[in-house]
């Protein structure tokens, strides 16, 4: 099977952001019952108290991250559990699943890519004292949205 990614880069390069935004909006609406829209990052700087990551490999190679405050991560978990209180491990688990569904929804929207792109299982980091060094050194796009009036950042980094 071919692993040439040039056609994907050419056809989608200018469209990564709207596709990512749509993938994010659908996940929040369906799984959390919340309509979210992108906002200006400068006016709503996101927290990275919690960071969830999903690796992409194959035709698309890189990483998708979701960063938010501990409060937002807890609110997402509570909503996913049907307004039941979430334990600390469930908070991380829920954010990882949100990131997983965003990544899956994103790649499923790219015709010709979903067949040839694999997702890793999620990784979740709690705490802001870390540096993330992705091997993806190509194009990066980021969207910030307001969830319960707090910013959540979703970032896609791709290998060139």
């Amino acid at each position, binding site marked *: 099977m071919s692993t040439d990614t040039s056609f994907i880069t050419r056809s989608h390069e200018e469209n990564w952001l709207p596709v990512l935004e749509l993938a994010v909006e659908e996940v929040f609406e369906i799984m959390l019952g919340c309509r979210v829209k992108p906002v200006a990052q400068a006016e709503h700087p996101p927290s990275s108290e919690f960071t969830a990551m999903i690796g992409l490999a194959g035709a698309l190679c890189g990483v998708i991250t979701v960063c938010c405050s501990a409060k937002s991560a807890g609110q997402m978990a509570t909503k*996913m559990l049907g307004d039941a209180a979430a334990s600390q491990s469930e908070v991380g688990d829920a954010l990882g699943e949100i990131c997983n569904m965003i990544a899956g929804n994103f790649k499923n929207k790219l015709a010709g890519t979903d067949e040839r792109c694999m997702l890793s*299982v999620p990784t979740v980091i709690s705490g802001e004292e870390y540096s993330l060094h992705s091997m993806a050194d190509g194009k990066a796009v980021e969207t910030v949205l307001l969830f319960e009036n707090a910013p959540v950042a979703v970032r896609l980094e791709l290998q060139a």
Partner: protein
Amino acid sequence: MDKIRALIVDDSSVMRKIVERSLRQAGVELDKVTEAGNGAEALASLQENPVDLILCDINMPVMDGLEFVREAAKLECAKGVPIVMITTEGSESHVVQALSAGARGYIRKPFTPDQVKEHVLPVLVKKP
């Protein structure tokens, strides 16, 4: 419809709870729900806990959902038990692989309770 015994296989405990809630919202009356965090755990669980329905993720550590479906088909205790995949993997090749291996339904995450109803109720009614 009689109350059923379900096995929910997903490496996310939160997602297992969501799937169980979605089943109840879909009108499925649950007698007992067993959970497993991957395919290998699910195979072991099936030996001890017979079930009427299996809902299974694909991307999981240790043993993924596609391998689980293939292995479950070899088990006497799982013969005729419908398996419905619930996964972020939405490609046609994954759908074909899952259905070829013996899965009876395929739901893409993110999903609504209506989608669970649409894909699960028919396989509960139609026993092979």
